[in-house]
């Protein structure tokens, strides 16, 4: 077998462009796959470990009573032990200066404990830890001093808190606020603040189902109410946007880091399979010779499988190792956006098996069956070059091209008799076009959210009264009522926002995702994001567990799935709320709202929280997709490289397979230019058709990718490829094709007549 191995290596040496190109494709996809998966899963696992090791509490809350005391009275603290397995008090206060808020926390020992990510623990009372994200944003280093309420605080290190993965002042705000908000941890909060709030960090015994947890929480709240307390800032672990947003983002990061590299790998494998297949057909005379000499089928199968096996193994192992070493760099895309704990990069050997398995399954069966099929022929048939024999198809016979001039006749014959080769060029251009457009196409789609948002939110000014519920008609603008809820569909739970809309509302415009018809608010509609996360279809019944309204659970049939772009939101008719409210409280209100929206700035809304929804949503989307854009750029650029290699390989293949024809034409006295035209022109139509088809296919594929990578997020991104992107992709593909043709034509000029004819004889 030593000789056959030697032959395999020499085959690679003599066909460098093709084999090295294919190897680069496999390495590249393996690098991307491994780097994204390793970094994504390492972050995810480190976070999970962090939550466990640093005892992320099941719920945090504050309590108030009529006397506005800070926390429970000592005699009432036993209530906590009745309901919770572990409880710890944490003190905090917000110190504001120049628009920047520093949230000072006391150090806890049992719940939501901190992790020192860099530096040393604070020992003296003027020493503090700072969150890394804020420090980085404001360029603060360890041993620097920062001003905290007029005192100088020495930063001894950076830290991470399990319930503050996203540095955001609002738990429902998924934006990282490090520009204006930071966390400070101090061993002695009294040193920095005269007054501070007490929050309770509590955990239930492990293993409770969500319904059981709900029961405990409800009973606990009732007991508190009986004692004259009510809870404030109640925040369950599963509803903490600072955690869920990061979770969703990281999941998306992993998704995008898997889909595209796997696609590239499949493309690489597919093209490699084609190349090897063509190589095999070109080598049938050699295979036949081996067979005639007495080599067994098994030996020949092993020999012809060796080359792809070598490429796949080498590509995935080398790619895997490079990918692993690059994973910390790739992880920076995510790390810089969150205040994450220390990440332990662990290589999962499964990654290499997955990528090897994909490439293996995509390539080796093709080679196996092609070789086996060839070996079913007698050796003589193989030696005569069975696969290289041109056949006159029925189409050619029917076409009656004999009367055409030679050039046209040759052009048509070349296409009809070498359809397989042209099909490869066609597929190569389809895939190249797709790869070239994919990165920019995803960016186009993300940028297009802006348009979607403006189409959805016709009124951009939003005034929220929060818990201060308003009754009666709003003075100006449109109103709606918003409340938090947990939705259950067959055991899947999702935190959502209920939005009770007036039937004739114009401020928020939505459409049925399927029929594209505009929705009026007489029907219940769930945003596409809710439908996706809960796996809900039109007509399914879901359970709404109210978190902000004092109602029992609602069973509700999903009437419409809407194209609402941002948020897990369920839209309900406001009449339903008013009826329930009146029934619950025995009242007779005719309107209720806590949000007013308008297309103009409104006066007299000082008591509300104002949001310019366009600014807010764009900032949110920028942050959500910021990491993904970086990931997409890395993959998109790789895709461009892959596309270029692909086109070049295909053109090289065409040239190699036509060497004999080229030599013959040259021998007959054809000029190199004429030979170029005859040999390479047949492919132009196929290349152009391939590029055109790549557009709709890419639109579909981008839709699929966006759907997958926003799986963990509450954002809907519709696929969109701008004409500029398409033009750039087509221009690049066309240029690469043109350059490859140019290189090919230079090679044509160098094809030695005698050698090519001699090689063909052999």
């Amino acid at each position: 077998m030593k000789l056959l191995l030697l032959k395999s290596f020499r085959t690679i040496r003599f066909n460098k462009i093709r084999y090295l190109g294919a190897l680069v494709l496999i390495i590249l996809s393996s690098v991307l796959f491994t780097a994204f998966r390793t970094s994504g899963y390492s972050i995810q696992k480190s976070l999970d470990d962090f939550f466990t090791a640093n005892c992320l509490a099941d719920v945090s809350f504050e309590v108030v009573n009529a006397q506005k005391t800070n926390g429970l009275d000592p005699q009432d603290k036993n209530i906590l032990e009745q309901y919770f397995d572990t409880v710890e008090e944490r003190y905090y206060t917000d110190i504001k200066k120049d628009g920047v808020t520093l949230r000072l926390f006391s150090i806890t020992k049992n719940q939501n404990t901190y992790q020192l990510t860099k530096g040393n623990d604070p020992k003296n009372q003027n020493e503090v830890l700072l969150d890394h994200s804020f420090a980085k944003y404001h360029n603060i280093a360890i041993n620097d001093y920062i001003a905290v309420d007029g005192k100088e605080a020495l930063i001894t290190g950076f830290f991470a808190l399990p319930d503050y993965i996203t540095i955001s002042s609002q738990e429902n705000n998924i934006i990282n606020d490090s520009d204006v908000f930071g966390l400070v941890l101090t061993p002695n909060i009294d040193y920095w603040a005269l007054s501070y709030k007490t929050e309770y960090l509590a955990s239930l015994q492990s293993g409770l189902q969500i319904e059981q947890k709900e029961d405990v929480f409800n009973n606990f709240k009732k007991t508190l109410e009986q004692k004259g307390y009510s809870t404030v800032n109640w925040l369950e672990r599963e509803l903490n946007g600072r955690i869920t947003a990061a979770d969703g983002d990281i999941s998306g990061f992993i998704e995008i880091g898997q889909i595209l590299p796997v696609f590239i790998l499949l493309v690489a494998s597919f093209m490699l399979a084609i190349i090897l297949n063509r190589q095999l057909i070109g080598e049938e005379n050699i295979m036949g010779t081996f067979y005639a000499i007495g080599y067994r089928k098994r030996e020949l199968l092993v020999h012809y499988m060796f080359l792809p096996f070598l490429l796949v193994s080498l590509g995935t192992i080398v790619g895997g190792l490079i990918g692993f070493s690059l994973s910390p760099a790739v992880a920076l895309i995510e790390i810089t956006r969150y205040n994450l704990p220390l990440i332990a990069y662990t290589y999962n050997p499964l990654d290499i098996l997955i990528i090897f398995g994909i490439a293996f399954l995509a390539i080796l069966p093709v080679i196996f069956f092609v070789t086996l099929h060839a070996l079913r022929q007698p050796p003589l048939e193989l030696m005569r070059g069975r696969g290289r024999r041109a056949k006159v198809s029925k189409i050619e016979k029917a076409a009656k091209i004999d009367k055409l001039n030679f050039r046209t006749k040759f052009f048509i014959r070349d296409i009809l008799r070498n359809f397989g080769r042209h099909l490869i060029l066609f597929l190569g251009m389809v895939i190249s076009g797709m790869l070239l457009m994919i990165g920019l196409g995803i960016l186009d789609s993300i940028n297009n959210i802006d348009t979607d948002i403006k189409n959805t939110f016709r009124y951009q000014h939003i005034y929220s009264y929060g818990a201060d519920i308003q009754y009666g008609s709003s003075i100006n603008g449109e109103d709606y009522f918003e409340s938090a809820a947990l939705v259950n569909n067959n055991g899947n739970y999702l935190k959502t926002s209920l939005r009770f809309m007036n039937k004739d509302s114009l401020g928020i415009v939505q459409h049925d995702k399927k029929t594209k018809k505009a929705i009026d608010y007489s029907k219940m509609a769930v945003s596409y994001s809710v439908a996706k996360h809960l796996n809900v279809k039109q007509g399914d019944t879901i359970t709404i567990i109210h978190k902000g309204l004092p109602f029992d659970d609602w069973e509700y049939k999903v009437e419409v799935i809407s194209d609402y772009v941002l948020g897990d939101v369920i839209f309900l008719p406001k009449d339903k709320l008013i009826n329930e409210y009146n029934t619950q409280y025995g009242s007779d209100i005719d309107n209720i709202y806590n949000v007013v929206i308008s297309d103009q700035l409104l006066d007299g809304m000082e008591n509300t929280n104002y949001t310019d929804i366009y600014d807010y949503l764009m900032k949110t989307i920028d942050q959500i997709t910021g990491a993904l854009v970086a990931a997409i750029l890395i993959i998109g650029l790789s895709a461009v490289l892959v596309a270029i290699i692909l086109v070049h390989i295909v053109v090289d293949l065409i040239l190699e397979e036509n060497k004999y024809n080229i030599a013959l034409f040259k021998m007959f006295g054809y000029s190199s230019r004429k030979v170029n035209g005859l040999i390479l022109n047949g492919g132009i139509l196929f290349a152009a058709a391939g590029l055109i088809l790549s557009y709709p296919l890419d639109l579909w594929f981008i839709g699929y990718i966006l759907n997958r990578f926003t799986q963990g997020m509450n954002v809907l991104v519709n696929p969109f490829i701008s004409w500029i992107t398409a033009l750039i992709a087509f221009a690049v593909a066309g240029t690469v094709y043109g350059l490859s043709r140019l290189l090919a034509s230079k090679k044509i000029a160098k094809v030695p007549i005698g050698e090519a004819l001699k090689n063909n004889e052999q």
Partner: protein
Amino acid sequence: MNRNILLKISDLIKIYCSGESDFYALRKINLDILEGEFCVVLGPSGSGKSTLMNIVSGIDTATSGSVTIMGTTITGLKDNALTEFRRENIGIVFQFYNLIPSLTIKENVEVASHIAKNPLGIDEVLGGVGILDQKNKFPSKLSGGQQQRVAIARAIVKNAKLLICDEPTGALDFENSIEVLKLLRDINKRYNTTVLLVTHNSEIAKMADRIVMLKNGEITKNEQNLQILSADQLEW
């Protein structure tokens, strides 16, 4: 000396189906070749001689009839068994050499020696065909005559009982042809190898022990050569 029959061909027919009409390449061929015999099969182009050689060497299939070599009827063997038989008992010299372009001369010969049970020494064989000094070159660097010698070396290195040569001098000039023929005769004598040589050159038949003539797929002549010449005495 009584010699055993090494090759027995009985009622061998080969038909090529080409859609509308069938073409009879071989029509009921019957032929016995003795062990150690040097047999030349003569015939014009299209007479069926190459088809006959291909079937006898087990690289093509017969439509009907049988080919028995050393007691084994190879026309009844399945693919794998036929491959095993070829591997152990038959050496083939192809008309167009069929060398592996990505292997050197020595490696091309080694390809065959590697799978043989009792191979001859590679250097010995290469020396025998006069191209030992070229052994590290690739086939494309050799002349046609040299390449044919490599093909012969590859066929004989297996030390097979039957050596089948399809137009071994077809692409060679006179001098090279004589060298190759001398070589084949030498192998035939030295190793008692049965040689079945196909050619359209009637002059070559003069060095054979047996001359078989084919025309339109039928044997028109099958006789012992009573005036055997050496390769050196041939002229054309």
